[in-house]
C-alpha cells in the first residue's frame, strides 16, 4: 500500500457499515439462549453475540421480563421501554414459564440444540429448578453456561438475597468513590450535595460485566474448538467493573493510599483534565511532556511559563502542583470557545513549534451535540434503524468495523413472545394447535 490516502480509502470501503450486509457473520453457527431476568447485563451480553450473527433466542416469562419496565421517567415508545428497545436487537423473543416442570422440559429441548446459555437468576435458582449447569451438561456436554449476578456463583456472599443493579455494582466497585467533585473547603453535604462520590450516568455497571462475559464466552467457544468441551462461566458485576480501577488496588497495596475523587483532574497524569471555556468545557490531554509544552505554546505562554525549561512531568503530576496549575490554565481556556481551542490544536499540529506534536483538545458535548455530530453519522454509528415493528429507532451500532465479518443491526427489538410461532415450530415442530395448548396451560 503505497500512500496513506489509498489505505484510508481501502479501510473505508471495506469497513463501511452500509455494506455490512454483503458480508458473512462471524457467529452465525452459534445458538444462544438468553434467560436473563431483571438484568440488563444479560440482555447486553446476548446483544453483543447477536450483533455478530449468533442465533439468539431470548426467553422471557409469559408476562415479559421486568427489565422492560426499566425506562427513563417511565417513558414507553410504542409500548416498549427505551432501554430494552436498544438491546432486543437481532434476537428472537419467545416466552416460556420456567416455574413449571413442563416449561423446564421444553428448555432442556432447546439446550440440547444450543451452544451457549446466559442466565442472571440468583445463584441456586437454576439448580433448584433442575436446570443448573451440572444438570444441563448431561444433556449437552458442549454447553457454555454463563451466569452474571451480583456476587457470583461461589464465595461467602454468593447466597446473599440482594438483587443485582447497575448503581449497586458501581457503588461496590471502588470507582464511584474515586469519581466526583471535591467538597469545597468549609462546606458540607447539605450545601453541596453534588460534591460526593458520583456514579457514571450510563449503565456501565451492567454493560461492562456483560462485555467481559461475552469475551469469556468467545474464549470458551475457542476452547471448545480445541477440546470439544463446554464449561460454566461466572461473573460478579461489581468485580468486573472494579477491574477498570487500574490504579486503585496497587496504590493501596503498595502505599496504603486510597484513590479518592479529584474532580475533573486525575491523580495519574498531567495534562489530563476538563477545562472551562467561554461556551462550555473542553478536555485537555497531554501525558507527555512535549504535549504539555505544546499546550503552553499553543495558548501563547511558552516564554512567560518558560516551558522550554521543563524537564519532565513528575513535578506537574504532584497533587499540590496540579491544584496550583489547574486554575492558571483554566483562566486561559476561558478566553476561548470550544471550537477555537479545537482548531488551535489542529493548527498547532501542522505548524506549531513542536508539530506534529499537539495537545489533545476535545469539546465536552451534550449527547444531543454528539447525535448531531456528522462524524458518527458518516461512520454509521448513530443512525436510525428501520425496524419492522417499531419503525425508525436511533441506537448506537456498528462499533465493530471489520473487513470480513462486520456487525450489523437487523432489527432493534421485539414485543414479548413475538417469535413463539417461528421458534417453537423450528425447534419442536409445535404448530398453532400445540401453541394454543401451551398457552392455555400458562407455559408460554
Amino acid at each position, binding site marked *: 500500500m503505497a500512500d496513506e490516502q489509498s489505505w484510508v480509502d481501502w479501510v473505508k470501503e471495506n469497513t463501511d457499515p452500509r455494506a455490512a450486509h454483503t458480508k458473512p457473520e462471524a457467529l452465525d*453457527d452459534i445458538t444462544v439462549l438468553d434467560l436473563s431476568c431483571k438484568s440488563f447485563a444479560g440482555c447486553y451480553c446476548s446483544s453483543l453475540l447477536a450483533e455478530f450473527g449468533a442465533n439468539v433466542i431470548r426467553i422471557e416469562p409469559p408476562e415479559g421480563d421486568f427489565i422492560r419496565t426499566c425506562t427513563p421517567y417511565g417513558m414507553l415508545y410504542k409500548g416498549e421501554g427505551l432501554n430494552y428497545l436498544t438491546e432486543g436487537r437481532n434476537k428472537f423473543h419467545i416466552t416460556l414459564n420456567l416455574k413449571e416442570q413442563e416449561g423446564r422440559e421444553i428448555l432442556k429441548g432447546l439446550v440440547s440444540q444450543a451452544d451457549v446459555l446466559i442466565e442472571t437468576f440468583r445463584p441456586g435458582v437454576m439448580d433448584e429448578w433442575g436446570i443448573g449447569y451440572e444438570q444441563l451438561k448431561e444433556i449437552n456436554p458442549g454447553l457454555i453456561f454463563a451466569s452474571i449476578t451480583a456476587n457470583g456463583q461461589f464465595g461467602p456472599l454468593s447466597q446473599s438475597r440482594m438483587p443485582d443493579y447497575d448503581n449497586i455494582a458501581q457503588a461496590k466497585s471502588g470507582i464511584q468513590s474515586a469519581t466526583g467533585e471535591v467538597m469545597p473547603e468549609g462546606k458540607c453535604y447539605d450545601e453541596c450535595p453534588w460534591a460526593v462520590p458520583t456514579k457514571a450516568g450510563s449503565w456501565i455497571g451492567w454493560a461492562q460485566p456483560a462485555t467481559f462475559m461475552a469475551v469469556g464466552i468467545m474464549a470458551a467457544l475457542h476452547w471448545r474448538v480445541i477440546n470439544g468441551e463446554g464449561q460454566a462461566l461466572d461473573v460478579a458485576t461489581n468485580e468486573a467493573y472494579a477491574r477498570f480501577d487500574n490504579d486503585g488496588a496497587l496504590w493501596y497495596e503498595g502505599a496504603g493510599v486510597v*484513590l479518592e475523587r479529584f474532580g475533573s483532574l486525575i491523580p495519574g497524569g498531567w495534562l489530563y483534565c476538563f477545562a472551562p471555556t467561554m461556551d462550555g468545557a473542553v478536555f485537555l490531554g497531554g501525558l507527555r511532556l512535549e504535549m504539555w509544552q505544546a499546550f503552553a505554546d499553543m495558548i501563547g505562554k511558552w516564554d512567560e511559563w518558560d516551558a522550554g525549561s521543563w524537564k519532565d512531568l513528575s513535578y506537574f503530576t504532584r497533587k499540590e502542583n496540579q491544584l496550583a496549575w489547574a486554575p492558571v490554565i483554566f483562566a486561559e481556556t476561558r478566553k476561548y470557545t470550544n471550537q477555537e481551542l479545537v482548531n488551535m490544536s489542529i493548527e498547532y499540529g501542522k505548524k506549531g513549534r513542536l508539530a506534529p506534536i499537539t495537545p489533545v483538545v476535545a469539546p465536552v458535548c451534550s449527547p444531543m451535540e454528539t447525535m448531531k455530530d456528522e462524524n458518527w453519522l458518516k461512520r454509521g454509528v448513530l443512525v436510525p434503524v428501520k425496524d419492522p415493528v417499531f419503525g425508525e429507532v436511533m441506537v448506537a451500532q456498528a462499533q465493530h468495523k471489520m473487513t470480513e465479518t462486520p456487525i450489523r443491526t437487523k432489527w432493534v427489538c421485539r414485543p414479548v413472545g413475538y417469535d413463539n410461532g417461528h421458534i417453537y415450530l423450528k425447534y419442536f415442530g409445535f404448530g398453532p394447535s400445540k401453541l394454543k395448548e401451551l398457552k392455555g396451560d400458562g407455559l408460554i
Partner: protein
Amino acid sequence: MAEKTWKNYRDKKHFKPLPLKDIRVLEVGTLILGPVGPGFAALMGAEVIKCEIPPLGDTARNMTPFGYMFRGAFPPTFTHINVNKYWLGLDLHKPEGQKVFLELAAKSDVIQTNLRPGVMEKWNAGYFHIKEINPRIIYISKTGFGEWGPYAAENRPSNDGAAQGLCGYAWMSSFSGQPPLKSGVYPCDDYGGLMGEMAILAALHHRDRTGRGQFIDLAQTENIMRLMSWIWPYQHITGNTAMPSGNRDVSICPADSFYCKDCGLVAIAAPAPEEFKGLCTAMGRPELAEDPRFKDHLTRLKEENATEILKIIADWSRTKSAGEIEELAEKHGFAASRVKTAKDVVEDKHSRERGFVAEIDDPLLGRYHDYGFPVMMSKTPPRVNWGVRPVGFDNEYVLTHLLGKTEDEIKGLYECRAIGKWADLPGRKPPSDWDGRSGIIMARDGDGEGKE
C-alpha cells in the same frame, strides 16, 4: 450443584488449561487503550509480546498517581494492565527492527496497535505488509475516531478523556446544574480495549471456521457510545437533550445513593415489586408499597412520583448507618451497598476467596495483591502469573526461542540499535533491589545491565 462446579476453583486454577493458550499476540501499543486488550488476552493464556521502542518504551511508564511508583519501580496502572506479557525492546523506526517485526508477525495470530492512523504503515508494518506474509493475521487498530471519517482526516489525536467528552458520557455522569464530570478512571480506554477483544475473538472464531484473517478498525469513542442505551432513542423520539441526574438512576426507581447517619453514601435499589415492598417494610412504611403513586414501577418512575419516593428514602437513610441499611436490605431482599473504596475491594474476603483479588508472587516485584480477570471459567480459569518488566527485558528469550536467532545475530541487532533495553529512569528500569538475574528467562553473558 453450583458448589460442585466451583469447588476449590481458586486453588485449582493452575492445574487447568488456559483457553487462549494457542494464540500469539503482538502488541505495539501505548498508554491504556493499546495495551489493556492484549492484557486481557494474556490473562486468558495468549502469548503476548509487547513491543516497545527502547529505551523509554510505553508512555504509560510515566502515569504515576501523584508521582507514586509501585514498589518504587512501575506505575500502578501500567502494572495492572500489562501482566503476563513478554517484553521486547524493538525500534520500529529502524529497517532492521521492522524486519524482526515481520519475522514475528509471520508467526503470530493477532497484531494490536493504538498508534495514530498511518504510523504502522510508515513503519512497513501495516495490515497490507503483514497480510502479504501471513494472510491469517487478525490485525486491530484502536484509535479515538477510527481510520476514516472527518476526525480521522483531520488527524486529531485522542485519548480517554476526549472520548468521555465527545460522546456525551461525561455530560450524563454529573449532577444537574454542575459542569460535566470526568470519571476518576479511564472508562473509554478500558472499554475500547475490552470491546477490541470481543472483535478479535469473533474474528478468531471466523478464522477457526474459514481460515481467513481480517482487519479491525476500532474507535474507542464509538464503543463507549454503544453502552449509553436509552439516551439515543430518547433524544431521537422526544427531540430533547438527555439530562444528567447525579447518582439517581432515572430508569430504575428507587435507585440512588443516599446520605446516611455515618456521613457516607449508601446506594440502594429496589424497583421490582417484592424488592420495593421489602424496602417499604424496612423503612417501617409498608403502606407505601400499596400507594397508587408507587405501586407500579412505570408509575413510580414518573418524575413527580420518583422525586417523592426518593425524598422519603433520603429522610429515612439519614436516621440509619450504612451498615444498618445493608443488613435490612439482606433481610428484606432489596439491594444496598455503601460506596466502597479501593481498600474495601482489595480487602474484600469474598473476592479474595473467589480469587478475583489475586495474590501474585513476582520475581521482580515480590508478593502482592491485584484484581485478576473477572470472568471465572470452570474448565479454563484465567489467571495472573507475573507482573511487568523493564523495557526489552525479554529480548533474548523472544529472539532465541521464537525466531531462533544466534547470539551473533542478536548482538548485531543490539549494535544497530534495532533492539535495546531500558533507560536508567524510573518506570523503565528494574526495581532498585533487583539482583540482576531474577525473572530473566534466557540470560546471556553480561546481562542484567541496562544497555542504554
